[in-house]
């Protein structure tokens, strides 16, 4: 009962295949069902580029492949998502790729990119990371969606006038930018997100960093008085697919999925820019004041951010750091 779909598969497969398909309750073996999970809860806008991808795959390839959106952290809790993708409990994962650092430490470098995710397809960077993902992470890399430069900003109650003002302040951090903040002389502490507002309100912490995008929707501006410019790092949500699941897809569909993923990246890149503007305008409208560092300080701020980042990458992957830096610099 083999169908034309299996034409591209190796010859020795059929025997096993029939055994598997007879176990399936329905004999509609032609449609491969794949499950997708997101880092973000369903109600958050961050998922929009993922939905673009999923809907388009289902629309165009629906008779061959179907992607089912299982949900967000309620399905697989955030700390377990990378593992679930790596082992194959889920097939697609849409998340900030730094959670994949335990498998592919080099992925951390994406935050330092000077090259857009679309340009990465041209200069070989995309291929490079895809290869690393396949070799070390048992994953197919589809690149970043919901992505943009100048991703994170520093939110504080103190009117920052120079870069030295950061020295000795206490910030709530996450691993992505902790090394940078430490270089500014900031003392880093970790708090749960639910306590951020109380901690800022009562002065337990002096500030925190957070993405500009999405900030307005979750009310980041309510926790602080000022947002410090310049913003730093390239932020992104990446789409990964379990490699075994990828390999099980008929070869003629693979390029189609890659094409749709690229279109989702194009869409996501534009959408993210609009979303970024909407968020920052919303926060300003709600009373958040933007303060700019003096030009020399601003430059030093960004250089420090980069240095801290590249030092981390060099420590994580001494063998690949030079190649990555070359690929991610224009």
């Amino acid at each position, binding site marked *: 009962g083999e169908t034309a779909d299996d034409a591209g598969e190796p010859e020795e497969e059929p025997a096993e295949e029939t055994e598997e398909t007879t176990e399936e309750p329905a004999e509609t073996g032609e449609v491969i069902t794949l499950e997708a999970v997101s880092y973000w809860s369903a109600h958050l806008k961050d998922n929009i580029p993922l939905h673009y991808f999923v809907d388009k795959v289902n629309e165009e390839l629906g008779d061959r492949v179907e992607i089912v959106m299982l949900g967000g952290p309620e399905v697989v*809790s*955030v700390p377990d998502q990378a593992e679930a993708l790596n*082992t*194959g409990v889920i097939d697609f994962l849409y998340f900030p790729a730094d959670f994949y650092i335990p498998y592919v430490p080099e992925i951390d470098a994406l935050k330092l990119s000077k090259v857009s995710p679309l340009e990465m397809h041209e200069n070989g960077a995309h291929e490079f990371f895809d290869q690393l993902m396949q070799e070390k992470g048992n994953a197919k890399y589809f690149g970043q969606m919901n992505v943009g430069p100048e991703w994170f900003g520093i939110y504080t109650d103190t009117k920052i006038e120079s870069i030295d003002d950061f020295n000795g302040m206490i910030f709530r951090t996450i691993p992505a930018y902790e090394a940078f903040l430490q270089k500014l002389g900031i003392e880093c502490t970790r*708090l749960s997100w639910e*306590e951020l*507002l*109380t901690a800022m309100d009562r002065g*337990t912490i002096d500030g925190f960093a957070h993405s500009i995008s999405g900030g307005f929707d979750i009310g980041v501006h309510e926790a602080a008085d000022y947002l410090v410019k310049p913003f730093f790092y390239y932020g992104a949500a990446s789409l990964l697919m379990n490699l075994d699941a990828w390999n099980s897809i008929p070869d003629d569909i693979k390029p189609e999925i890659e094409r749709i993923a690229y279109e989702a990246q194009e869409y996501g890149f534009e959408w993210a820019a609009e979303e970024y503007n909407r968020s920052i305008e919303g926060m300003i409208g709600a009373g958040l004041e933007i303060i700019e560092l003096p030009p020399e300080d601003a430059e030093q701020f960004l250089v420090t951010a980069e240095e801290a980042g590249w030092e981390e990458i060099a420590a994580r992957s001494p063998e690949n750091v030079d190649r990555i830096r070359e690929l991610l610099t224009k």
Partner: protein
Amino acid sequence: MEWQLMALIMFAVMLVLLFLGLPVSVALLIMVLFGFVVFVDPALGVNHVINGFFSSIAKFTLTPVPLFILVGNLMFHSGVAMRSINCISKWMGSIPARLSFISVAAGTFFGAISGSTLASFSLLASILYPEMRRQNYSKAMSIGPILASGGLAMIIPPSALSVFYAAIAQISVAGILIGGIGPGILMAVGYSSVILLRVAINPSQAPKYEFEKISWRERFHSLAVDLLPAAFVTGLMLVFILFGITTPTEAAAVGFVASLIVVIGYRNLTWDVIKKTVTSTMETTGMIFFITITAASYSQLLAHTGISTGMVKWVIGLGLTPIVTVIAMLILVVILGTFMDQVPIMMVTIPFFLPIIEAFGYNMIWFAVMMLIALQIGMTTPPFGLGLFVVKGVIPEIKVKELYAAAFPYLLSDAAVITLLLLLPDIVLYIPGVMNLI
């Protein structure tokens, strides 16, 4: 497979295991392993569940759970809590049903220091009941108030169960804790009204008795020596939160250190006290956290298989008005509470309830506090309840029927409080709102 069928199979498996007397955590673990292997991934199901152990429990937000329990146990086993009862007793003049009122006052005061209901029940039952019996109080006026006011510890902050709720529901810990102040006081007022009413109808239930006259000088002395040091524990936590020295979650550690200071100050920190405190704390914590681990997988299993979404859509599709749905949920919690412990009820129901509450646009903290009161009722409803076990431990000869009768009027009072909260959400939300927590 349809979600209804999967849900039916899994719930049937779990119910059978539970009713056969298997520990709740073990029954959940078996169901989760079964569910993930059969419905999600035959090859990786077991690994997936085991991998999830770490993230479900290694959460900073859960830190106050053992620490609040630790404080309650330390205050109880060291005798510091008993001192505060003595002080309250000295201040309580010659009123009718004196000991019953002391029980409510002590339950409220200790509830504001301790985050452990078990410690509260043990305290009231072991210290107040013998005296009540000596003075010929009826069961309704002795066991009733003890059962009623022991549960205040989980509504009035600090509360281990509130923190636990906030951690599962991912809502503000401070919000849910502070939101319990208004309702907690209201509950204490309700219990006092029940006592007043009963003693007015039938004064023989709580006979007046002669007790030593206490001078004002002695009262104030007792206040300073017996009550204030215990109040220092909560006071220090509040000060540290208000001045931003700690976050509400971290304040549990301040409470722990403060209670240690108080106990050392009384020179009561013996090896025996330490042993009893740590043992009882880890018994409760270990039990709660083992269930947490399995229940986290359980709620993920429901989400993974689409049962949660199916159920939510089904409930909303019933077309009940939102408020009727909320009432139905609370009644369900009370019913489950007659034969299940608080922690498993939360773990089993919250994954279903919250998406529905969210879809209706209700405030999460408001619902959480009402649900906590409904859970609190479950501690005193036979046949299964933490409060009942403790009281039975102190008074082995008591019959189930008598417990019903003793506890029932106070449950009506709780129901009245929940009704009030349904009508006036501000009783919960006003203080957190003023403090900018919601």
